[in-house]
């Protein structure tokens, strides 16, 4: 099989080169994700096969299954996949921008900013304004946190190491604020909020799905189209500026996309950690470094990670329902340590 396919218009005015293998892998990951969406709701007790799931989604199934599938399990599977998609893509963008294998939205404080804004909103405003503004608040928090981190680390440019160090510092302060609000909030069930904070897809509903879907559907494809500039950026600031790329402008646009995706995901599922760190690394092993393939693959890998974590979380300790974030951190933290060992001479 040819390694690359060239597509040219007749007079060679437009031409694309498509790498076959990464394209196929990306498509395969997409199919896997789609399959998860329709198989996932069946797992657990009681078990349903995909046909039954399809039937009840289109309203032609036998009566008893509808509640479990349509109301409980399908939105949950969909939300976990979408949240993972957002987080994985956000992490891949971020690692591309700061050119640091250890960067991810949760380590440099972006998810922390989203979480504190979301906790403030849930505690003080949700009763009067309703849940529909929650994603905007969380995205706003994520934006403010990343702006703060970016500004503090700015010293004639931003070096990746300073960004990560200061991100860790800022997220410590932000986490303190979150805990502060949790302890302050009057007659608020602390344990519920705590579970939300650890990242849980526990009570995902169609409404959550509606909140998350537009962001994922709009921004993920947009970044994929836009991402070829990241390929150039990987060559380094000077080279890419020499190649005619306005480095800082693209960096800011992509950073914004990453922040918005992470914020949207956090607003619905809480802080599910380490997905944005791990997914891009797995995707890189599968499809290589070219960003137009890497971004969607990282998204799909992220989706599958959160999805599997949630399936394990709700079935393994049945009837307890454990936050999926615990599993992602349990896998992600050792992976982070592995990366640290692997790149030990870089820091």
């Amino acid at each position: 099989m040819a390694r690359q396919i060239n597509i040219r218009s007749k007079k060679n005015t437009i031409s694309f080169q498509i790498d076959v293998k990464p394209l196929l892998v990306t498509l395969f990951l997409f199919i896997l994700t789609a399959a998860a969406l329709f198989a996932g709701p069946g797992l657990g007790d009681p078990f349903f096969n995909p046909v039954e799931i399809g039937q009840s989604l289109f309203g032609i199934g036998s009566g008893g299954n509808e509640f479990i599938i349509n109301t409980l399990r399908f939105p949950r599977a969909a939300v976990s996949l979408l949240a993972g998609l957002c987080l994985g893509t956000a992490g891949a963008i971020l690692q591309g921008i700061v050119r640091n294998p250890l960067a991810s939205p949760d380590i440099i404080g972006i998810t922390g900013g989203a979480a504190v804004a979301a906790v403030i909103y849930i505690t003080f405003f949700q009763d009067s304004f309703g849940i529909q503004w929650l994603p905007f608040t969380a995205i706003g928090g994520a934006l403010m946190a990343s702006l703060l981190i970016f500004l503090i680390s700015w010293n004639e440019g931003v070096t990746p190491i300073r960004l990560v160090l200061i991100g860790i510092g800022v997220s410590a302060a932000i986490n303190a604020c979150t805990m502060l609000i949790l302890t302050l909030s009057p007659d608020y069930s602390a344990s519920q909020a705590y579970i939300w904070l650890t990242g849980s897809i526990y009570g995902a509903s169609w409404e959550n799905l509606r909140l998350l879907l537009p962001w994922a559907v709009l921004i993920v494809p947009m970044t994929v189209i836009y991402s070829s500039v990241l390929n150039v950026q990987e060559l380094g600031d000077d080279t890419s500026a020499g190649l005619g790329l306005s480095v800082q402008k693209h960096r800011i646009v992509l950073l914004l996309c990453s922040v918005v995706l992470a914020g949207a995901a956090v607003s619905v599922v809480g802080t599910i950690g380490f997905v944005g760190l791990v997914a891009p690394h797995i995707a890189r092993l599968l499809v290589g470094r070219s960003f137009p393939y890497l971004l969607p693959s990282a998204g799909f890998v992220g989706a599958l990670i959160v999805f599997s974590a949630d399936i394990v979380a709700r079935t393994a300790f049945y009837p307890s329902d454990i936050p999926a974030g615990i599993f992602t951190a349990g896998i992600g933290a050792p992976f982070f340590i592995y990366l640290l060992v692997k790149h030990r001479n870089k820091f």
Partner: protein
Amino acid sequence: MSHLLKTKQSRFIGAFAAVLLLLFTFCSSLYFGQTSIVIEDIVQAFTQFNSSSTNQVIVLDERLPRAVLGIVIGASLAVAGALMQALTGNPLASPSIFGINAGALFFVVLAITLFSFSSLVHIMWLALLGAAVSGLLVFLLGSIGRDGMTPIKVVLAGSAISALFLSMTQAMLVLDENGLQQVLFWLSGSISGRSLDMLYPILPFILIAAAGAMFMGKALNVFATGEDVAKNLGQKTNLLKIGIGVIVIILAGSSVSIAGAIGFIGLVVPHITRGLFGPDYRWVVPLSAVLGASLLMSADVLARLLIMPQEIPVGIMTALIGTPFFIYIARYGLTKR
């Protein structure tokens, strides 16, 4: 780094002022709180205690333990931080950054929820074990690679180990919701509502460790010139390192076992002390203890007063005070090295 008090005389005056500050914060820790208590009541509580007076009972049963714990834990954390910074030559080293808090917390929660330990002494030993395990892990992870222990590597290793232990702690707490209600306040670090009975079994260890730290000043000064130089000068550096490690683990681990995760005292205080008294560890260690105790007690008083009638867990206060400091060191302090 230039420091404020250059002559020996001015340092003695500075040390005296620090002790006065400690006394002042101790008194204000007895005085301020939800119930306003006049000074006569506080004095009487110590001189001629009258158990029918509510105010005097509050002073002796609630505020005094809090102030004493503030002193012991603040001093322990600050000394542990100073020793860690000396051991690693790393300005960001401190118990919370090293993941010691998270490790000790994990072992404590494991003991309470899974094995339903209730003996405080056993829990305390487990906390020490957790502190040792996580501290050692971060130390090893942070020193791999060509350049040895760079600040960024230590911070990254610390946050990875912390995240790992925290996620396991969370898993246990979610499975056991009653346990969560008990420890939530404690997760964020607090010295309120704890009786002095918790302190007595470990106090001897803390005192011995602290005394050991005080006598180490001279050796630390030699060690700070660089490990190779110290070896050539005849210092048994490996022995010293083990000694420092044991002291740090006792001090930091027992603090966590009593008060939960109180961060940043161990990071901030040694820097302040060095800024005032210079790099001589014979001054830095004891004065870190004094200033650490004052800082934790003041943070605790603030935590009581800011949003009366509620209280902020003091660990949150220290994190809010400490993180700007961390950021400052990360931004400016590291470039010199």
